[in-house]
């Protein structure tokens, strides 16, 4: 902790956006010393090892500087040193809350170079797993978000449902967190007998429980007071920072890769009108505030349930993986494939020279781009609101650092 003697009220005046009610006006009259506070590297609200250097003027944040790299594990460098199939387990480990989606993104990028056709049942299983994982990821996002700002009970409720989801994954692939289930060419294991009906039972129960989360947390007066009108991201700002996923839809930008650049079966699902894209409308405060982003995530869970139900309805027996050799030699070329991860666009850029090992395996993690917005959002808010803003970006530090 260090202090400086300079006092610049102009920073607060220019950056701080006062509410119409004038709630924060008194902050400008208080003469204080600037103080630098380290939030992290071990802080419960950063969900991983990340440090945010916050400059405070009393209770008012005048600057925030995220420091990353504590979890850097050289994923991209490893990608250039192991074979194509061997890299798959590493993809589990950047966004460990949505490992299925990571597997899918990497597999699709390699498949784009190979130009192979995926069996329909494999695509069904992929979609079911990716959407179930999206639900699990959003449950954590919303649950820990409530926890960060003081609501402990919903967190416990949400972990209960996530536990069921993880048990489902355990049955289909044996792992609870790092699945490596979606492989290049398909999936590695067929659904065990009775698994699909269990997924259906999960959907039935989840729809009932979802209402609980909505009432208990999203409509909770204290939660709304803590999150509305805070951390407002405007439309222009969202585009400028390259935000994707719920961060973009939270600012009412109608964009979802599943619909707009369709991959796998999503084109068919969308044409069947099986799901919608929830868009924030500024219901509880300003458009693009932290409550809006949390709301988008909560609503998306229901849409994922609808997609899973569509797949359960249509799934048929068949092969689950395309014929691929044990040692893959990928044709030379380069491909970028972006898919809709729970946090936004997960892009894989792979370059091959025709050999067994990738020349380049770039990962565009959505959390990395989404986190950059902190530098801009935090100045002008209160220190207590800083937690609400960090939580609303829903970062996974494993992915920002890779």
């Amino acid at each position: 902790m260090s202090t400086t003697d300079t006092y610049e009220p102009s920073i607060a005046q220019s950056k701080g956006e006062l509410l119409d009610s004038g709630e924060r006006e008194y902050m400008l009259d208080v003469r204080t010393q600037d103080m630098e506070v380290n939030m992290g590297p071990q802080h419960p609200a950063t969900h991983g090892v990340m440090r945010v250097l916050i400059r405070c003027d009393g209770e008012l944040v005048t600057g925030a500087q995220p420091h990353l790299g504590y979890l850097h594990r050289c994923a991209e460098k490893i990608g250039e040193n192991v074979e194509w199939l061997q890299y798959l387990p590493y993809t589990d480990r950047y966004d460990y809350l949505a490992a299925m989606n990571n597997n899918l993104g990497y597999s699709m990028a390699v498949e784009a170079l190979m130009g192979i056709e995926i069996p329909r049942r494999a695509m069904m299983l992929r979609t079911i797993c990716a959407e179930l994982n999206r639900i699990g990821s959003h449950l954590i996002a919303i649950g820990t978000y409530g926890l960060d700002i003081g609501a402990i009970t919903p967190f416990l409720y949400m972990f209960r449902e996530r536990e069921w989801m993880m048990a489902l994954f355990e049955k289909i692939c044996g792992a609870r967190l790092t699945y490596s289930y979606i492989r290049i060419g398909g999936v590695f294991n067929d659904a065990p007998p009775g698994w699909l009906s269990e997924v259906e039972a999960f959907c039935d129960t989840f729809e009932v429980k979802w209402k609980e989360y909505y009432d208990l947390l999203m409509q909770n007066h204290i939660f709304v007071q803590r999150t509305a009108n805070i951390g407002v991201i405007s439309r222009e700002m969202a585009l400028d920072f390259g935000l994707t996923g719920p961060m973009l839809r939270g600012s009412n930008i109608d964009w979802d890769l599943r619909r707009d650049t369709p991959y796998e079966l999503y084109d068919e699902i969308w044409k069947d009108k099986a799901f919608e894209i929830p868009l924030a409308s500024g219901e509880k405060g300003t458009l693009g505030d932290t409550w809006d982003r949390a709301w988008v995530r909560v609503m998306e869970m229901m849409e994922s349930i609808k997609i899973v139900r569509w797949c359960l309805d249509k799934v048929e027996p068949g092969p689950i993986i395309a014929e691929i050799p044990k040692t893959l030699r990928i044709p030379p070329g380069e491909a970028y494939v972006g898919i809709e991860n729970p946090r936004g666009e997960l892009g894989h850029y792979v370059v091959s020279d025709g050999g067994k090992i990738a020349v380049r395996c770039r990962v565009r993690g959505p959390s990395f781009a989404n986190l950059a917005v902190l530098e801009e959002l935090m100045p002008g808010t209160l220190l207590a609101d800083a937690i609400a803003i960090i939580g609303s970006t829903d970062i996974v530090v494993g992915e920002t650092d890779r």
Partner: protein
Amino acid sequence: MDFQVIYDRIRSIKAPGVIGCDEPREPNPEDKKDKGRFGDSFVLVEPERLPEFLECVRDDALLKFELMADLSATDPSKDDENLWINVQLLSLTHKHRLAVKCFLPKANPVMPTSAPVHRGAQWAERECGEMYGITFEGHPDPRNILLPEDWIGAPMRKDYEYPEEYHGISCK
């Protein structure tokens, strides 16, 4: 819009710095060494004029590449003289993508920053700069982002030599 239409438009508005384009092609059956090229098409741009190019395609009404999804670099091989700068652009208005590539000589890896055009490029360039030893001129905050401040060398280069120790910790 598909790639050809986008490229024609880029040509017709005379977007700055465009050198050419590269499209995937099938292998030549007569030449056994030719394996063809698969994957995406991309536009080749001079690295010195990349920010101008990005601004031009962002503001053009028919292209509208308003979101920069990714900026990264590639070291194709030890013997290659150039690094690649790969930019992935996305248009939310017209729902199309564009891959942009620049060849940046390894001998002098300096290019202007794109941060004033896309604020999201600021962090991407910090990562790209530290990993490949590229200097982005005019960058507002050119510190390391994932690596420690005192890290030596550019780890993602193909000719990178692994350190033997770091602050007394053996790396062997």
